[in-house]
């Protein structure tokens, strides 16, 4: 199969994630969109690794996964505590940190 298709798939997935981040308010959904973007990035890394015949991209993808996992743990904890105090999971409600 042509590796180019995977790049296109990664781009499509990334776009879906980015648009999701921009248009959705629910923090959990936002989070899933970010994961989608990260994994689109992983897919692109692995594909390029395949195209180039080196392992650099695959190793990089592992790092991204580790970071994403750690980020999920912290992010979910933050969302939990915000939800507990404000009874809302909307990111637009948490707008106190501004000018």
């Amino acid at each position, binding site marked *: 199969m042509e590796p180019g298709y995977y790049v296109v798939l990664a781009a499509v997935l990334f776009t879906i994630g*980015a648009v999701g*981040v*921009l248009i959705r*308010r629910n923090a959990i959904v*936002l989070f899933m969109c970010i994961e989608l973007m990260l994994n689109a990035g992983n897919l692109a890394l692995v594909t390029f690794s395949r195209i180039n015949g080196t392992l650099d991209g695959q190793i990089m993808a592992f790092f991204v996964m580790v970071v994403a996992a750690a980020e999920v743990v912290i992010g979910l904890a933050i969302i939990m505590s915000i939800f507990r105090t404000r009874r809302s999971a909307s*990111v*637009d409600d*948490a*707008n*106190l*940190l*501004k*000018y």
Partner: protein
Amino acid sequence: MHASAYEVLASAASGTLSSFWLLIVIPAASGGILLLLGRRADRWGHLLGCASVGVAFVLGLVYFFQLGGLPATDRRATLDLFTFIQVAALKVDFGLLFDPLSAVFVLLITGVGFLIHVYAVGYMADDPKRRTFFAYFNIFVAAMLLLVLGNNYVMLYIGWEGVGLASYLLISFWYTRPSAATAGKKAFIMNRVGDAGLAIAIFVMFANLHTVSYDGVFANVDRFTSGTTLALGLLLLIGACGKSGQFPLQAWLPDAMEGPTPVSALIHAATMVTAGVYLIARSNPIFDANPTAQAVVAAVGAVTLLIGCIIGCAKDDIKRVLAWSTVSQIGYMFLGVGLGGGAYALAIIHLLAHGFFKAGLFLGAGSVMHAMNDQVDIRRFGGLWKYMKITWITFGVGWLAIIGIPPLSGFFSKEPIIAEAFDRPGWAGWVLGFAALLGAGLTAFYMTRLFVLTFHGPERWTDDIKHPHESPPVMTVPLMLLAIGSAAAGALMATPVQDWLNPTVFGVEGGEVPEHVHLSHTVVTILSIAITVLGGLLGWWLFRNGTSLQEQPAGPVVTAARKNLYGDTVNETVFEKPGTYLTRALVYFDNKGIDGLVNGLAAAVGGGSGRLRRAQTGFVRSYALSMLGGALLVAVAFLVVRLG
């Protein structure tokens, strides 16, 4: 006249003389103790202050006789205590020199100083800061002794600055009075002008000879070019003019009378203001090497002695008259040191005699002020002789001494200077001689006016004075001792002091009889006595019935004299006003230009960032959008660069 080159004598101090550094340390330590202990020393501070100077005087006498016991050719003792500064080629020892010239100054400073200290115990009795006063007084004495005992110009300079500091502190001692604070600043600033001259002179010596010690400089005077000796002479003269209140730096001295009267007596009459004379007398090899510099010194002296006399005639403030008289008498000393040769010693003799009679006159004035509720206007005195007999008699002795009535001291000290001025060849002799002679007549006039208006004639007191009283013994005893000194010192000192100073310090052989160029000594003597008596009689005749209580309108000459011959006006127009305008312009430029630029920049940055702050909305998704936009922008830019 004297061709003997300066000889460096091996002269390390030995025996008792090796401890003459104590002269400086004792008053300095006493001053330090009084300042450090603060109020704890209030009860006995004045006693310690007097005692330290008294001890210094006794020590001074001991060292003086030790020095006198040595053979005339090696009457000098040096002490190198430690190396003070050592940087590359510059090496300055903390070195002291006790020679005949230093010795007479030491005796004058500690002797007259001690009497004035004792007097100040009574004069300052009611002042809450009497202890501070004595601390400053002691520091002054220590600095003055360092000035005359140093064996190089840097030591002299330290003492020079030390006495300047003490003078400033004591002039503005009553600093809550604006006039006293201003007078202190004026004295300090005008002195700085002179000090700059002295400092540059020291730099020139170092640049040329790599030494600043008296021995090192004087032994090598012939290595200077004539331009250098002229520059050195003039620079030293500027320093001397600043410290001694000579033209054109004379304006600070009369204002210095804002200080307590003992300060006027000790610092601004007897000792500190004569430091300029000391400087020139000490630097005699430099001045001897350049007749032009000498002539300038003599001219400055002659001009100043006339300025002092003329202004003294027009003043109504007892202390100001005495102050201008000091300016004038120091003018005589400058004339003396400017004439050179044998006249150096004459100037020093006049300096010593002046130390006695002027200190006595100032202390007498203080005693009068004490009786008259601290008033100083001689128009409101009169008839005091009945009420304060001791002050009257002692002041009278000082008055006769300063105008030069034989056999009092002023006659023996002033008249030879006049004669010596006439002995200068050419027209200069006539000009200097007549200036000095005219000065003698004017001195007699204004001093008689002062004396008659204060002690004789009708009583013109203000209403608040009922019973003037004589001062306590602690003040009158110093007055009596100074009066004895004023009366006797001239006749006793004249010849011995010449024999004492001339061979060692000034290189003039004894028994040299100067040739009389214009007038013989007898003629000069008769002339000077005649003009003195004439001036005195005129002063008595005009003021025997008192004077009007208010200032009367007067002609241009008297008005000019009342305004200090416009000396202050000139300083104001030439130096002060342009300086003020310059600083005002600079302040304006600083406020509007520099500050405007800096403040404008800050305001622009502040305002701009205030607007940019609005972009921080707090909505996460708007940040996400801007990040995406940014990332896209980078990606597009990247593509354009790669593909375009």
